[in-house]
C-alpha cells in the first residue's frame, strides 16, 4: 500500500469517529502568506517548545531548595563550600549529568532567543500596522506574552541561586520593599520573612515551571487560534487585496516549511549552546548577601529596566515619618507601567486618532505610515538608551570611558534622543515616499548617460514594471479627520480640548507625500 493510501485510511478513521471531514478539509487547505518577517513569531513559538522540552529535562535533577549543603561534587574549586541545594544541584547538572550542561545552555539560549523573537515579532506587527482592527485583541495578548516572558526569564535565571542571580533577587526584593505603605509586608510575604530566607526559590520554582508555563500555553493557544480564525495578514502587492489571502496551502507546503523551520531553530540553538557558553554559574559561586562580583548584569531583556534604575536621580521623599523611594519607584514600576500600558492600548489610540474603524488585512509599508513608524523608532531609541546605561559598567571598561560620563550622557539622552529619532524617522519616511513617487513618474535610473546632439548629458530612465508601479501606488492616503470646533449652529462642541488634540494628532498622522494619481500620469504623457 502506498503512503498516500495509508494516510487516506487515517483520514477515514478520524472522520468516522469525529465527523470532522468538512472542517479538516477546509483547514488543511488553509492558505498562509509567505514572507520572512512572518517567521519571527514562529521563532518565538518554537523557542517556547524548546524551552518546555529542555526545561523538563532540567527538572529531573534540579533541587529547588535553599537548604544549606556542603558541596562535594566534581568541580574542585568549590569543594567543601557551603551553598544552597539549588546551586549544588545546578552544578551537578553542569558537571556530572552527561548532556546536562548542554541542556542548561539550550534552555538559557532558547530563553534569550525567545525574548528576542518576541520583540522582533512585536516590531514587525507594529511597523506594518498588523495590530489594526480586527486584531487589537491579539496585540494585547502579545503584549501580555512579552510581559510574562520578562518575568518568566527573570525567575528562571534566578533559580540556580548563584552570586549573580542572587543579586538580581536582592534588587527585586528592594523594588517590592519600595512600594508605598505595604512594601515591607509584601517583601516579607514573598520571601517568607527576612531576605533571603529559604522560601523564595521553592516558590518561584513552582511559578516558573507550572503557573507561568500554564499561562503561556493558554495565551499562545488563544494567540494562534485568533491568527488561524482571522487569517494571516499579507503585504500589499499585485493580486493581493483586503478581500483575499495569497500564499501556500497548509498541507503540504506550509507544514513542511514550518515543521522544518522548527528543527532549524532547534539546531541553531543547539549549535550556539555547543560553542558559546553563557551563564557559567560555577564561576560566580554561591549566593551570599555580603558579596558581589563586578560587572553584575541581568539578561538582555531586563537590561533596559536596570539601565533606567541606574540613571534615576537620587530622589527620596519623606512625609510624616514615612519614606517614598522615587529613585526606585519611578524607573522600576511607574515608567515600565506607563510604557507597557501605552503599548497595549496603542491600537485603540491610533484608531481614535485616525477615526478609522474598518478592517485591515493588507499590511502597511512602514514608510506609508510615517507617524507610526517614527513613534516606533522613538520607542526603540528610548529602550536602547536605557539598555546602554544598563551595561554602562561593561561599556566603560571595554571602551575606556568614564562611567559617570555614560550615566550623564544617558540621563540627558533618554529625553533628547527619542524625539530626535521621531523627527528623523518621519522625515526619512516622507523622503522614501517622495522617492517612490519619482520612481513611478520617471522610472528607474539606469546609470546610462546619453549625450544629446546639442551636447547635453542626460541619464536614461527606464519605466518600472507594472507590478512595482502598482505596489507603489496602491496604498491608501487617508485625509486628516475634520473636527470643527463649532458645530453647524455655531455652538462650541463638547470636549473642545479633546477634539483639538485629536485633530492635531490626526493631521500629524496623515502627513504624506501625495502618491501618484491618475492625473499625474496623464500629465506626464503629454
Amino acid at each position, binding site marked *: 500500500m502506498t503512503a498516500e493510501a495509508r494516510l487516506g485510511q487515517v483520514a477515514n478513521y478520524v472522520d468516522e469517529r469525529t465527523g470532522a471531514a468538512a472542517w479538516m478539509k477546509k483547514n488543511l487547505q488553509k*492558505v498562509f502568506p509567505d514572507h520572512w518577517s512572518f517567521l519571527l513569531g514562529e521563532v518565538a513559538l518554537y523557542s517556547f517548545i524548546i524551552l518546555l522540552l529542555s526545561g523538563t529535562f532540567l527538572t529531573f535533577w534540579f533541587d529547588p531548595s535553599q537548604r544549606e549543603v556542603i558541596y562535594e561534587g566534581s568541580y574542585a574549586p568549590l569543594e567543601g563550600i557551603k551553598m544552597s541545594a539549588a546551586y549544588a544541584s545546578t552544578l551537578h547538572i553542569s558537571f556530572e549529568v552527561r548532556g546536562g550542561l*548542554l541542556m542548561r545552555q539550550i534552555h538559557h539560549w532558547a530563553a534569550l532567543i525567545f525574548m528576542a523573537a518576541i520583540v522582533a515579532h512585536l516590531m514587525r506587527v507594529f511597523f506594518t500596522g498588523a495590530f489594526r482592527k480586527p486584531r487589537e485583541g491579539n496585540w494585547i495578548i502579545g503584549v501580555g506574552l512579552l510581559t510574562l516572558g520578562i518575568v518568566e526569564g527573570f525567575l528562571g535565571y534566578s533559580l540556580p541561586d548563584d552570586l549573580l542571580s542572587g543579586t538580581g533577587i536582592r534588587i527585586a526584593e528592594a523594588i517590592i520593599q519600595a512600594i508605598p505603605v505595604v512594601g515591607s509586608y509584601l*517583601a516579607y510575604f514573598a520571601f517568607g520573612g527576612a531576605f533571603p530566607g529559604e522560601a523564595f526559590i521553592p516558590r518561584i520554582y513552582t511559578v516558573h515551571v507550572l503557573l507561568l508555563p500554564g499561562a503561556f500555553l493558554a495565551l499562545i493557544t488563544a494567540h494562534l487560534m485568533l491568527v488561524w480564525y482571522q487569517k494571516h495578514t499579507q503585504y500589499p502587492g499585485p493580486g493581493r487585496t483586503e478581500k483575499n489571502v495569497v500564499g501556500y496551502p497548509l498541507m503540504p507546503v506550509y507544514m513542511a516549511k514550518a515543521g522544518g523551520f522548527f528543527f532549524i531553530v532547534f539546531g541553531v540553538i543547539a549549535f550556539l549552546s555547543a*560553542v558559546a557558553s553563557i551563564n557559567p554559574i560555577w564561576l560566580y559561586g554561591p549566593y551570599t548577601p555580603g558579596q558581589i562580583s563586578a560587572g553584575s548584569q541581568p539578561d538582555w531583556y531586563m537590561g533596559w529596566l536596570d539601565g533606567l534604575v541606574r540613571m534615576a536621580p*537620587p530622589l527620596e521623599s519623606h512625609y510624616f515619618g514615612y519614606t517614598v523611594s522615587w529613585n526606585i519607584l519611578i524607573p522600576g514600576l511607574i515608567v515600565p507601567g506607563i510604557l507597557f500600558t501605552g503599548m497595549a492600548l496603542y491600537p485603540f489610540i491610533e484608531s481614535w486618532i485616525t477615526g478609522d474603524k474598518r*478592517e485591515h488585512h493588507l499590511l502597511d509599508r512602514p514608510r506609508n505610515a510615517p507617524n507610526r513608524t517614527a513613534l516606533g523608532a522613538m520607542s526603540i531609541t528610548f529602550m536602547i538608551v536605557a539598555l546602554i546605561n544598563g551595561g554602562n559598567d561593561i561599556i566603560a571598561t571595554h571602551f575606556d570611558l568614564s562611567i559617570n560620563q555614560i550615566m550623564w550622557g544617558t540621563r540627558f539622552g533618554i529625553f533628547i534622543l527619542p524625539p530626535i529619532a521621531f523627527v528623523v524617522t518621519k522625515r526619512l519616511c516622507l523622503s522614501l515616499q517622495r522617492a517612490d513617487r519619482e520612481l513611478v513618474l520617471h522610472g528607474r535610473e539606469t546609470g546610462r548617460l546619453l549625450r544629446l546632439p546639442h551636447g547635453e548629458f542626460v541619464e536614461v530612465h527606464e519605466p518600472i514594471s507594472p507590478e512595482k508601479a502598482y505596489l507603489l501606488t496602491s496604498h491608501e492616503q487617508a485625509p486628516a479627520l475634520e473636527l470643527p470646533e463649532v458645530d453647524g449652529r455655531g455652538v462650541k462642541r463638547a470636549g473642545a480640548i479633546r477634539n483639538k488634540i485629536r485633530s492635531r494628532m490626526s493631521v500629524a498622522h496623515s502627513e504624506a507625500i501625495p502618491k501618484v494619481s491618475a492625473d499625474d500620469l496623464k500629465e506626464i504623457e503629454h
Partner: protein
Amino acid sequence: MSNEIEAIKDPGLPAHVHRKADHDPVAAKRAERQVAILFGISAIGTLLLIFSYIFIPDDVFIFIPVMGDQNAHQLGLGLGMAISLFFIGMGAIHWAKTLMPDQEVIAHRHEFRSPDSDRKEFVQAVKDGAGAAGLGRRSLIKRSLGAALGLSALSPILLLRDLGPLPGNELEKTTWKSGTHLVTDPGNRRIKASDLEVGAVAQVLPEIEDPEHRPLSDIAKDAVLLIRLRPDEFNLDADRLAMTHEGIIAFSKICSHMGCAVALYEQQTKHLLCPCHQSTFDVTRAAKVIFGPAARPLPQLDITVDGEGYLVARNPFSEPVGPSFWERDSR
C-alpha cells in the same frame, strides 16, 4: 476614502514561473537526492552525539582556533545534536521548495461583521436574556451579587497571609550591639586595629555564638566594611570622627539604594562603588553619595576597641541599613 480612482490598475498575481524540477525528471531526481543527503547528514549528527556520549571522557580538551580549549565531550554532544536537528529542518525545507507544489493559491476573505439582520437578532437576544434575568430592574440582586463576589475575592488573599511573618521592626534591627566584637569574614577572627594597614579594606561581621550557622538573612543586614585611612584624610564632623578608631571607619556594606553589597573600593579616590547601579560613596565624607541613584549615605557603625585592643562596636547602627521602605524614617 481619497484616491477613489487608482492611478495604476492591479496587474494581478505575476505569472507562475515553473522550477526546473517541475518539468525535468532529472532535476527532480537530483532534488530528491539532495533532500536525502540532508537527512543523511542529520543521521551522522545523531551518531556523533551517541559517540560523544559513550566514548569521549568528560575531561578531554581539544584546541579549536578562535574558540580556544574546548571540552571535547560537551562540544561533541552539542555539535552532534545541532547537526542532527538542523539538517532535518534543511531537508524538509529543501523538499518543500524544490518538489512540493509552489503555485501560490488565493483564498477569499470575508468581513467579520455579520449581516445586519443577524447582528440585530444577536443584540436583541442579549437584551432579552438580560431582561429575562431582570438585570435592569432588580438592582438589589445586582448589588448584593457584586458585593458577594467582591468579598469572596478576599478569601484567597486572606489565605495567603501565612506566606510570611509580619516584618515588625525587623528591617530596622541588626545583630550589632554595643560591645559586639568585629570578626573577619571569612575567617571569623577578632581583629585589632593593627591588623589593618592604612589603605586596607576588610569585610567584617558581628561575632556570634554559632558562626557555622550564621543565617544569610543576618549577613544581609550585618555585613560591614572596614576601611583604614590616615586620620587627616577624613573630612568629618566631630560626631562622625568620634565613631572612627585610629583612622578605621566602618560602614554598612549593604547599599542604601537596593541592597547590593557595596564591594568596590577605589583606593586612590577613596570612593566606594556599588557594582549594581554605580552609586558612589565618598569614604572621607561619611559615605556621602557623590554619584548614582542612591539617596542616602551608607550608615556608619560606631567602633572602638575593648580592653585587649580588639575592635568592637560602641553602639548599634543608629539607623536601618539597606534599601528604603515605607516605615523607614529617612530624615
